[in-house]
């Protein structure tokens, strides 16, 4: 359980870093842009 919690924490952190720093290789390099969450619009 503890390991699962840690793993999810790591996945969530990586996902938030990718989302918030604008590191978006899939969307920027090619032709698809997921809908940006309102919290990240600047």
């Amino acid at each position, binding site marked *: 359980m503890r390991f*699962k*919690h840690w793993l*999810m*924490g790591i*996945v*969530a952190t*990586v*996902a*938030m*870093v*990718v*989302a*918030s720093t604008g590191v*978006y*290789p*899939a*969307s*920027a*390099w*090619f*032709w*698809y*842009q*997921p*809908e*940006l*969450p*309102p*919290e*990240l*619009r*600047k």
Partner: protein
Amino acid sequence: MIHNYAVRLAAIIAGELKMNERQGIIAYGLEIIIGAWVKLILFVTLPLALGIFPQVAAAALASGIFRLAAGGAHCTAYYRCLVSSLVTFLGIGALSRYLAAYSLPLETIVICVTAWSLVIVWCWAPADTPAKPIVSLLHHKGLRIASLIIVAFYLVTGLYIPLKPDLVLAASLGFFIQAFTITPAGYRFIGIVDRLLSRQITPCRD
């Protein structure tokens, strides 16, 4: 499909970590990460199988770096983006490999693509999308300057660094196509491709 998986996974993670207010951001990040891996695998395996990996890689690298700053039109669903970008880059790779057998005026091609890109960057870059608008004026200016620097870098690389002709041609075609997707005509073209792939009539951005 990837969007749904990302949303479901984000809901599980946010529930487990008691971060429900961050669920949207986690889903957005996961969608990008999962989508990137699927694309990376396909963009490596298919060109390798067809024997055009260096050409496709050169085109994707040139186009991708330019796109990071200049933006451009986007499809509205992941699989449509995947199909259209794969067809485009595999086509560029195959064409570059085929044309490299002939003696092409590469310097002229590089100069023409640079001129084409400069005019387009000057008129339209950075080009945003409704899904990720560029609101900040400072961000807008920064991306515009970065786009001009990338075009200058392409010119210097194409003219002064000794690279294989097929790679220079592939990078030039990638640059050319990417510049086109910034223009209003490019937005209309991607809109048409998007509609053709989805077989639905949806509004397109001008």
